[in-house]
C-alpha cells in the first residue's frame, strides 16, 4: 500500500504544478483579450483621463507580471482578490454559492447517470447483439448526438409544459433538499442523458474486450453462469478504463454545463464564468478556471487511484 500513497502524493504535487501552469495560461489569455475593464465599464465616450483613473485605482496600470504575482500570493493565502465588476466584493463570496449549486447539480446528475450507465453497460455486454443491446445503444447514441439545449427543450416541452416539473431551476432561499431535487430535476435529467451514452458504451466495450481472454474461457469451462462470468470475472478487470471514462464525464458535469445552466436559468459556475469573461472581470475568471482545472486534476487522480486499487498486479508486488 505504501507505494499507492507515494503515487497519490506525487500526483498531487504534479497537480499543483499543473494548476500553476494553468493559472499562467489563463492570465496570459485574458491579457490578450481586446479592450480592458476600464474601457468596458466607461464605454466608448470615456475620456482618457477617466480611463486612466480607474486603471490606477484598480492597479491595472501595473506591469502584467506584477499583477500576476500579486494575485498568486493572494491565492496562496486563500484570497482570490476582489471583483472588478462588483466593486470591492470578494471573489470568494461570489463563487461560493455558485460552487455549491454546481456541485449539487453535478452530484445529482452523476448519482443518476453513473449507476444507470454501468448497469446498462453490463447488461448490454451480457446480452450483446440482442434487441435490448441495439435499442439501448441507439437510444444512448441519439441522446449524445443531439445538442444539449435541444435535449433540454424537448424535456421542457414534454415534462414542463405538462406541469410535472418546473422549467426554471432558480432556487428559492431556504429550500429543503426535496424541493431542491424537484426543482433541479430537469437540468439533472438533461445532463444524465448527455453523459450516460459515453460511459455505457465504454463499459460495454471494456467488458467485451475481455471476453476472448483465456481466463474467461476458463470460467465458462468451470461451468459458471454467463452473468457470473461477466460480473465476477470480466468486470473487475475492466474497472480501470471504466473509472477513467467516468472521471472524464464527472469533470464535464462540473465544468461543461454552461448551456444547460442557461436554458434552465440555473445559477451555476459556468454562467458566472461566461458573464465574467464578457465583463472582463479577470479575478473571477481566474478563480473559476482554477477550480475547473482542480476538478480535472482531482478526478483524474481519483480514476488513477481506483485503477491501481482494482489491479492486484499493481497493488501487491511479487
Amino acid at each position, binding site marked *: 500500500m505504501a507505494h499507492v500513497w507515494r503515487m497519490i502524493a506525487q500526483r498531487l504535487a504534479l497537480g499543483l504544478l499543473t494548476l500553476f501552469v494553468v493559472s499562467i495560461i489563463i492570465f496570459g489569455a485574458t491579457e490578450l483579450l481586446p479592450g480592458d475593464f476600464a474601457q468596458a465599464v466607461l464605454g466608448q465616450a470615456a475620456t482618457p483621463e477617466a480611463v486612466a483613473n480607474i486603471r490606477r485605482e484598480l492597479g491595472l496600470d501595473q506591469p502584467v507580471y506584477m499583477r500576476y504575482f500579486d494575485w498568486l500570493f493572494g491565492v496562496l493565502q486563500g484570497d482570490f482578490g476582489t471583483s472588478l465588476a462588483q466593486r470591492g466584493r470578494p471573489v470568494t463570496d461570489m463563487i461560493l454559492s455558485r460552487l455549491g449549486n454546481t456541485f449539487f447539480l453535478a452530484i445529482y446528475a452523476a448519482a443518476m447517470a453513473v449507476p444507470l450507465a454501468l448497469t446498462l453497460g453490463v447488461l448490454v455486454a451480457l446480452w450483446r447483439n440482442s434487441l435490448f443491446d441495439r435499442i439501448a445503444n441507439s437510444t444512448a447514441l441519439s441522446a449524445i448526438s443531439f445538442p444539449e439545449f435541444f435535449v433540454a427543450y424537448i424535456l421542457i416541452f414534454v415534462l414542463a409544459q405538462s406541469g410535472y416539473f418546473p422549467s426554471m431551476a432558480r432556487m428559492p432561499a431556504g429550500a429543503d433538499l426535496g424541493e431542491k431535487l424537484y426543482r433541479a430535476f430537469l437540468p439533472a435529467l438533461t445532463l444524465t442523458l448527455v453523459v450516460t451514452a459515453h460511459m455505457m458504451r465504454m463499459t460495454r466495450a471494456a467488458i467485451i474486450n475481455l471476453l476472448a481472454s483465456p481466463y474467461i474461457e476458463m470460467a465458462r*469451462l468451470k*461451468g459458471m453462469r454467463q452473468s457470473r462470468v461477466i460480473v465476477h470475472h470480466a468486470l473487475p478487470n475492466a474497472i480501470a478504463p471504466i473509472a477513467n471514462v467516468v472521471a472524464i464525464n464527472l469533470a464535464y458535469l462540473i465544468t461543461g454545463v454552461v448551456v444547460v445552466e442557461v436554458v434552465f436559468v440555473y445559477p451555476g459556475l459556468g454562467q458566472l464564468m461566461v458573464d465574467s469573461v464578457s465583463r472582463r472581470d479577470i479575478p473571477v475568471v481566474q478563480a473559476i478556471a482554477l477550480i475547473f482545472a482542480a476538478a480535472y486534476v482531482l478526478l483524474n487522480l481519483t480514476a488513477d487511484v481506483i485503477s491501481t486499487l482494482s489491479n492486484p498486479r499493481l497493488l501487491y508486488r511479487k
Partner: protein
Amino acid sequence: MADREVLLNIRGLKIEGKSGDDWLPIVNGVNLTLRKGEVLGLIGESGAGKSTIGLAAMGFARDGCRISDGVIDFDGIDLRAASQEQLRRLRGKRIAYVAQSAAASFNPAHKLMDQYCEAPVRHGVMSRSQAEKDAVELYRKMQLPDPEGIGFRFPHQVSGGQLQRAMTAMAMSCRPDLIIFDEPTTALDVTTQIEVLAAIRDIVEQFGTAAIYITHDLAVVAQMADRIKILLRGDEVEEADTETMLAAPKHDYTKSLWAVRSFQRAEQGAATDKPVVSLRNISAAYGPVKVLDNISFDIHARRTVAVVGESGSGKSTAARVLTGLLPPSRGEVLFDGEALPPDYRSRTREQLRHAQMIYQMADTALNPKLTLRKIIGRPAAMYLGLRGRALTERVRELLRLIELEPDEYIDRLPSELSGGQKQRIGIARALAAEPRFIICDEVTSALDQIVAEGILRLLDKLQSEFSLAYMFITHDLATVRAIADDVVVMQKGKVVEQGPKPEMFNPPHEPYTELLLSSVPEMDPDWLTRLLEERTRKGLPQSADQ
C-alpha cells in the same frame, strides 16, 4: 483396462470453423473411446484439431467453431443434445479443463483460493470452508510450496510452474470423472516441466480420474498416457497403447514424427579465425534488478553459438545488450575487435546493418498491414539504398533464398502465410540487410517439430552460403543438439558453463547443466519414473527452484 466401463464415447465427430462466410472442416469424423480411469494422449501438430476435440469432449466449441456432426456421449449423457444449462452443470463438476497457459487462464483479479473454491461452491459440491481445507490438501499433494498460504496469493505472485500445478488442483476440486489437459507443460521450462508432469501423473492415478492429455510432444505423452491417438489435419492417423505406438508405429506420418529430431549439423571443429562478435565482461541491469553478471563469449563467422537457459536466465537480455537496446552497466561489445557504442542510437548505420535479429513470434514481429514486398524491401532500401527494379529483384531473390516462389508470394500479407512461412519471412528480412551476424531468439519455439526442422535446415544452408555468425537463443536442448557449434549455458544471469558442443553433451557436467540435460523428456514410457527415482536416490533436487 479394456474391461472398465466406458466414460466417454465420441463417434464420427465433425467440427467446422468459420472462415469469412464459409464453414471449413477442422475435424472430420474422429472416433474416441475413453474408459474410467484411463489416460488418452492426443498428439498432433498445431492445426490438427486436438484442442478442438478436447473442448468438444466438454460439449464446448469456441466462438467461430461449431460441432456439426457426430455423437458425444459422456457417461450416458448425449452432450450434443444437452441444454446449455445441463452442460454448465457438468463443466467444472464432472469434466474439468486444464489450460495451456495457467498464467493467462487464472483471472488476474482474484486470489487462487477464490478461483479454486468457485466450482465446488457454485456447483453445490461442498461449502466454502470445506473447499478451502480441501484446496490446502490438494496443494500439498501437488507439492506446492507453502500449501496453507499459496491460495491467498494472486496469480501474478506465483511462478508459472506453480500456477500450472495450482490449476491442476483447481480442476480436481470437484473430483471430476474426466480432465482435459490441453498442453499443460508446453509453456514451461524443461526443469519445471518435470515437476508438473510428476504432480499431474500422481494425482490422476490417486483419484482414478480419466484424462485426455493433449500435446505435440511425444516424449511427454509417453510418460503420461495409457494409449496414444495421433491426429493429422482433423483426421485420425492411428491409435495404439503407448508401448506399441512407441515401439512399432504403423503409419508413415507417425514414423516421420518419431524421426523428426534427426537433423544434425555437420561438425565444425574448433574455431580458428577471429570472432565476429565478442561480449567482454558484460553486466547489465533493469533498474535495480541485476540480470547479467560478468558474462563473456565469442561468436565466429560460419559458427552458431547456442545460448541455453531457462526463462529468467538472462539469455534474451544478452541479445538486447548486443543489439544496443540495453546499454550494459559494465563491459563492452566488440565487433571485428572494435568496441561498439553501448547504445544503438550512437551506432553507425553500417554497424547496425551487420547485426540483425529474428524473433520468436513471427506473428507479432511482422507488420500485418504490409505486403512481403514492403517488409523485405525496407531493410534493403534503407541499408543498401536499393530502389525501383533493383529493389524488386532483390526481394524476389530473397524470397527464392527462403524457398518461397516470388511470383506467388511477393504481394501477400503476413496473414496469408502459415506459421513456418512467416518465420521464413523473418529470416528474409534479416538477410535483406546483408548482415554478418544474426541473433535468432527462440525462432523455432512457436513452431511444430516438422516445420521447425525445415527452418533449422534453412538457417544452416544460409549460414554456409553467406558465412553468417549466429547467436541462437533457445531453451530447447534438442535444437541445441541439432544446430550448435558452441554452447553457452546460462543460469540466473551468469554463464555456468561454455564450450564446443561435443564437450557440453558429454560428461562430466556442471550440476546445473546436468539438471538441464537430464530434464529433457525421452521417448521411453518409464523415463520420468526412473529419473525421479534416481534424483531421490542421489538426493538431488527435483527441480531448479527447490
